[in-house]
């Protein structure tokens, strides 16, 4: 009978756990360990997702699966939460976020033409990221600097009274910066 045969090792937990720790990196894995020592660790799910997004810029299925395993919350629940909140991004974002203000003041000052020029130059539309991973194009609703209309925000920097013709030079500046390893704003969400 088979019962007299030696039992094969069947538990895959150590491999699953090691892969999850590797995917998230030790600081986040340790934060999850700490959550697990407290009552109701599942209530820390959103806090953990914030850290993962801050670290990697977005939440990939691999990240979410790793969170599920280490926090011991079902992956469907983790993915359901991550996909519900607007704040959490499930796609990678570019190094620089181009936020074109489409508020009333910027709009009457030609933000639509400015946006169209960016779309033409980069070949992407709203919400998309360039293939080289440098730029993501987003809409903004009034950045509170209407005196500078139309406003283009790139990363944390504000560009005021931008005309469509200035767009190529501005983009080139950031492209150069992205190519220099030390510069840029790595780790920014």
């Amino acid at each position: 009978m088979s019962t007299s045969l030696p039992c094969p090792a069947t538990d895959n937990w150590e491999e699953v756990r090691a892969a999850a720790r590797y995917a998230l990196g030790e600081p986040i894995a340790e934060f999850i360990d700490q959550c697990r020592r407290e009552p109701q660790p599942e209530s820390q799910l959103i806090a953990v997702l914030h850290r993962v997004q801050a670290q990697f810029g977005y939440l990939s299925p691999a990240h979410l699966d790793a969170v599920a395993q280490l926090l011991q919350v079902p992956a469907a629940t983790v993915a359901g939460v991550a996909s519900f909140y607007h704040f959490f991004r499930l796609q990678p974002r570019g190094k620089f976020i181009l936020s074109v203000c489409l508020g009333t003041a910027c709009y009457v000052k030609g933000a639509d033409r400015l946006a169209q020029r960016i779309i033409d130059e980069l070949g992407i539309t709203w919400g998309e990221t360039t293939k080289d991973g440098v730029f993501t194009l987003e809409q903004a609703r009034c950045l509170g600097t209407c005196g500078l209309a139309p406003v283009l925000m790139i990363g944390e920097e504000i560009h005021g009274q931008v005309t469509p013709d200035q767009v190529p030079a501005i983009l080139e500046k950031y492209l150069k910066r992205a190519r220099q390893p030390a510069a840029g704003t790595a780790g920014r969400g």
Partner: protein
Amino acid sequence: MRKKKVSLTIDGGRVTVDEGTTIMQACQQLGIRIPRLCYHPELSLMGSCRVCIVEVKDMGFYMTSCSQKVWEGMDVQTNSPEIRQARRDIVELLLDNHPQDCQTCERDGNCELQNLAHAMGVRARHFEGRRKRFPLDLSSHSVVRDSEKCVLCGRCVRVCAEIQGVTNLSQHGRGFLTVVTPAHGANMDDSVCIQCGQCINVCPTAAFLEKRGAGAVWEAIARADLHVVVQTAPSIRAAIGEGFGLPPGTPATGRMVTALRRLGFDAVFDTDLGADLTIIEEAHELLTRLKEGPLPMITSCSPGWVSFLEKFYPELIPHASTCRSPMSMLSALTKTYYAERKGLDPRQIFMVAVMPCVAKKYEANRPEHVLDLPSPAGRGAGGEGAAAEGPGVRAEAPGVASISPLPLGEGQGVRAVPLTDAVLTTRELLWMIKCYGIELATLPEGEFDPPLGSASGAGDIFGTTGGVMEATLRAASELVTGRPADRLDFTEVRNVAGLRETYVAIGEHNIHVGVANGLTNAKILLDKVKEGKEPFHVIEVMACPGGCVGGGGQPYPPEGFHILDPRLLAKRAAALYAIDAGKKLRKSYENPAIEEVYDTFLGGPGSEKAHRLLHTRYAAKLPRGIR
């Protein structure tokens, strides 16, 4: 302590109920059934569909009666022109982005949304709403997911998490694009789904369905060169009558056999005989394990449970009985023992299994459940030649399981054919019988065919929770003590509550047994096994509530019952116990058909041949589930 009472008015009538009662429950006591959709009595409250709204005096808004508890002096109006209009509006809005394909839908006539729309008086479609567009998920062998038909009631999400402890499903995204999927929108096949099919059971529409197998079976029956054999699981006979107006709990064994023969099957075998065989092999395995370990031994007949074990508790795999399920054992015997006696090539046999279960479709497709046959001369490695022979029936349409022989082991002079070629659920068989125009209720009684058609009562009770345990105890008590069992009924292991632990004295052994149905219950026992504080000897696990009688492939409930209704499951179980009690032959060991199989073919329980044909193996599977 007596519960505090609360008095309220419902539709002008006074009623006094326990504190904590919901409006819906209070109405039920007055004989008023509030319409509902997302509400399910066996699941947690969600209150999302708003169909069950009622008017409560002095409240500025309609309240959901499923979730609102009553208060002293509450004045409820369940029916007024306004409330009826509001409910109708809600259902109309649900329908506005629902496909308009009722006539061609699998659930036509059995659809809760359809019934609800009719009851609410929806007689016209006022708006052509935007349609949801999602791909059909056909990746799984068992469960088909069609999110275009989903109304986001969340019952599948709840049954998967609360009853089965699997939590494979959740609502992803938000707003109009919300969709119920496994994590990250993955296919069912790439998820922790254990294919139990309870999502199919609780779904009010056709957003979850079993993968169809009937088309392949019709084609096989129509082919003159195939010998088409059917086997039926214990719990089919206890449920199939419901589809033909028989009261729930009416055994319909003989009539079902006659119907199967009229459908054109060449032989009708009884899975119960496979169950008898399972019992004998399992009892022998238990004896060996009592000496050599590892204990406890956990039963492995339920493929949903096996899948759960491999994904959620892989470290306990050495505890699972290596016995194949009754279905696979009987299929193996049909393609070897029966084929030899009939002088048939196993490739000529098309084996159909009627199961209460959708996970059996997955089991039949597992690569372990094949028969290795020497390749015919000249066809050694011929992929094309191999594909052209054997019961390779083409797929009829999307959603149909492929039943071509698995091309395993080719090129080594060995060809593998699946043990079971097609698996039908009870629902599918019910439909086939109706499609053929057979009036099951009035049929004469038929008998299963020899040599694999006679079974003991121990085989019948396999279909209900605790039944495998009881049958094992009947056999083990004789094996251990060496004398006839002093009793046949082990009512202490009959498990209606979902979880049961007890000690059973057998000879000088005091056997610690556990029985669980519904995997949330099974987790409790498995965690105890892991802790090792109270060592068990035998544990029976069935994935579905109530065991196979509540399987994911059983008929949608008849009028007056809801799905997973404990009253309905108890009636089906009672039918099986009645069949067992009414049989002279109640012990697997005394089944002459089994004796003959062992004497003339297998060469004794636990023999090398028995092991090759009747046992299997398991392996840890990814993705690993969170338990």
